């Protein structure tokens, strides 16, 4: 049996159950998604975009799915101790794919702003959700979009109305919680209307020592002159597999920064696709990866410059130890109309052992003639001369190695605009390099 069959069977057998525990706006796209999935199947590594991660193998095992929405007992507020404290965030939890709504943050949201379950949003505000849902994450062009769209039942909805500036950072803690191996299909929809501003921090954690397979499709719409900082911090475990597709559509004068930090994981593939639809939009993508053992982290980015006067920056840094595998494929597409584009992409990697592997593929496609673009990638080892210099001053070789690694990724962490988060991450990264973060340290439910 091929990897696809179990998902095809599941959909055919459980279609009614899936629909009944979801919402019409979500259900409306299922049939087309199913047809698209049937037609495409899982991408093999022959598909350029999926060259560095074996998708069929990841999806082959038989995971449980909670289509019947059984309540998995957990009170995240009681069991979860956040790893990023003192941020004064508005804290929300997602348990697997479901928004945890039994307790809400004490501080009220600004007038008109919505943070809730996507399923409920699709029922309460069907027109609003339908305007954005599935518009970017098209099922015909990506099999994981198709799979997620046909099976997804819930997720997160964030809506910031025109002109609303959200002072407190929204913190969304994704907790994977299950007594059996579990597949989770989660959907995120974030809409910032014109002149809105928000900061959103996602923290991924796995609370049980189970194999988890997550598909998360996030669609983000950023209106004219709107500003969004998006942080994604993964601190899961070696049995976790994460496939995240993130789509961002930016209108004129908007500004988005995306920081993706992978501190601890199993297998992670993050696709980030940013479409610059309006002039003078700016986007900044930062990635920091620390991987060891047999961990696998694959970042695949596309910045689509469709119009003139937009700016994009990408900085991704990896530190790979033991037999870890990293991949970075970053494509910048400057279309014919996109004159006066400024785009830079830099990827730098440190392979600490001979067995660690890094696949780097910076890509730049330019069809306009008046642009300023750069792209580049380096793979190296720790500088022996620097190590010896530090040893001569009395610093042990191990400590010197730690300082060099820390310095290497420090450049990316320094790009975090929230002071408390940046300080905390420097601390977490140091702990990680010292081997004190072999599991997600903060959550007590991690055994």
């Amino acid at each position, binding site marked *: 049996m091929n990897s696809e069959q179990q998902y095809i069977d599941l959909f055919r057998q459980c279609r009614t159950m899936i629909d009944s525990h979801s919402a019409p706006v979500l259900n409306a796209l299922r049939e087309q998604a199913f047809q698209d999935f049937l037609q495409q199947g899982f991408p093999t590594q022959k598909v350029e975009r999926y060259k560095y991660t074996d998708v069929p193998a990841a999806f082959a095992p038989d995971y449980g799915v909670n289509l019947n929405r059984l309540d998995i007992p957990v009170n995240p507020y009681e069991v979860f101790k956040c790893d990023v404290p003192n941020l004064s965030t508005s804290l929300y939890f997602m348990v697997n794919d479901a928004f945890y709504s039994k307790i809400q943050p004490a501080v009220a949201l600004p007038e008109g702003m919505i943070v809730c379950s996507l399923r409920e949003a699709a029922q309460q505000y069907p027109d609003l959700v339908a305007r954005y849902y599935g518009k970017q994450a098209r099922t015909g062009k990506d099999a994981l979009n198709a799979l997620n769209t046909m099976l997804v039942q819930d997720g997160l909805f964030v809506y910031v109305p025109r002109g609303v500036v959200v002072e407190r950072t929204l913190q969304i803690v994704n907790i994977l919680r299950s007594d059996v191996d579990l597949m989770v299909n989660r959907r995120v929809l974030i809409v910032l209307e014109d002149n809105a501003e928000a900061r959103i921090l996602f923290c991924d954690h796995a609370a049980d020592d189970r194999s988890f397979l997550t598909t998360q499709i996030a669609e983000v719409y950023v209106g004219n002159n709107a500003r969004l900082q998006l942080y994604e911090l993964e601190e899961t475990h070696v049995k976790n597999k994460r496939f995240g597709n993130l789509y961002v559509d930016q209108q004129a004068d908007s500004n988005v920064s995306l920081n993706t930090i992978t501190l601890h994981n199993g297998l992670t593939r993050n696709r980030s696709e940013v479409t610059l639809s309006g002039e003078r939009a700016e986007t900044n993508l930062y990635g920091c990866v620390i991987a060891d053992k047999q961990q696998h982290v694959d970042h695949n980015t596309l910045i689509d410059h469709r119009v003139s006067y937009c700016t994009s920056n990408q900085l991704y840094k990896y530190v790979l130890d033991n037999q870890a595998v990293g991949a970075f494929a970053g494509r910048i597409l400057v279309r014919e109309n996109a004159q006066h584009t400024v785009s830079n992409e830099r990827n730098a990697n440190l392979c600490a052992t001979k067995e660690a592997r890094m696949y780097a593929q910076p890509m730049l496609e330019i069809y306009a003639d008046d642009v300023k673009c750069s792209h580049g990638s380096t793979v190296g080892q720790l*500088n022996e001369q620097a190590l010896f*210099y530090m*040893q*001569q*001053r009395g*610093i042990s070789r191990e400590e010197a190695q730690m*300082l060099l690694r*820390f*310095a*290497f990724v420090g450049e990316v962490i320094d790009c975090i605009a929230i002071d408390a988060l940046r300080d905390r991450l420097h601390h977490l990264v140091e702990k990680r390099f010292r081997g004190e973060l072999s599991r997600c340290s903060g959550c007590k439910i991690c055994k």
Partner: protein
Amino acid sequence: MMLEIKDLHASINDKEILKGINLTVNPGEIHALMGQNGAGKSTLSNVLVGNPAYEVTSGSITFNGKDLLAMKPEERAHEGLFLSFQQPVEIPGVSMVNFMRAAINARRQYLGQEPMSAGDFLKMMREKRKIVELDSKLANRSVNEGFSGGEKKRNEIFQMAMLEPTLSILDETDSGLDVDALRIVAEGFNKLRTPETSALVITHYQRLLDYLKPDIVHVLLNGRIVKTGGPELALEIENKGFDWIKAELEA
């Protein structure tokens, strides 16, 4: 005696550079080590501090009675050995403050002492910086990153001031320095001298020795010390070069 080197042979990439060095340094002494390029001066300093690129094939080195060759580079530093590098290394992303704090506290740990408090440490940084007139901005930057040649050498002496070694090796610390920088570096070094501290100064030029006033001058030739004398030997080399020493040897 502080340092005793006996019949030291060392090679790099299987090429023998040091061919039987014998040298004794007592507390309070300054030794100058002179010689043409390729004579083995830098090899000797690298072997002393344990650079893994160099292999000691025979001989012994004792430092304050301990077997130096059995120690890791960092242990040698803790025991009081310091090298002012000919080419100080740039370490982007590691601040001078964190670098020095790690070094100081590693030593304190080795000596069974508590880590230094942040306040005491910064106070110490401020005081020692003055010795070599190192700008506070430089002290807040990454180690040697973007420093000029002179600033790098001053930074070496600053680190020496912080770590208070008993035996300092200055490997061509004067090379590439202008007159003012040379004076600052040399005067800084002299301020740090005590009756218990010694130094091994590798140089091609008399001008550094004018400041440091060595007690003993050695000439290294083809991996061996071929002549040892007082400060007047350095002056003679400045005037006449090395050929007369070679001629003496052949005679």
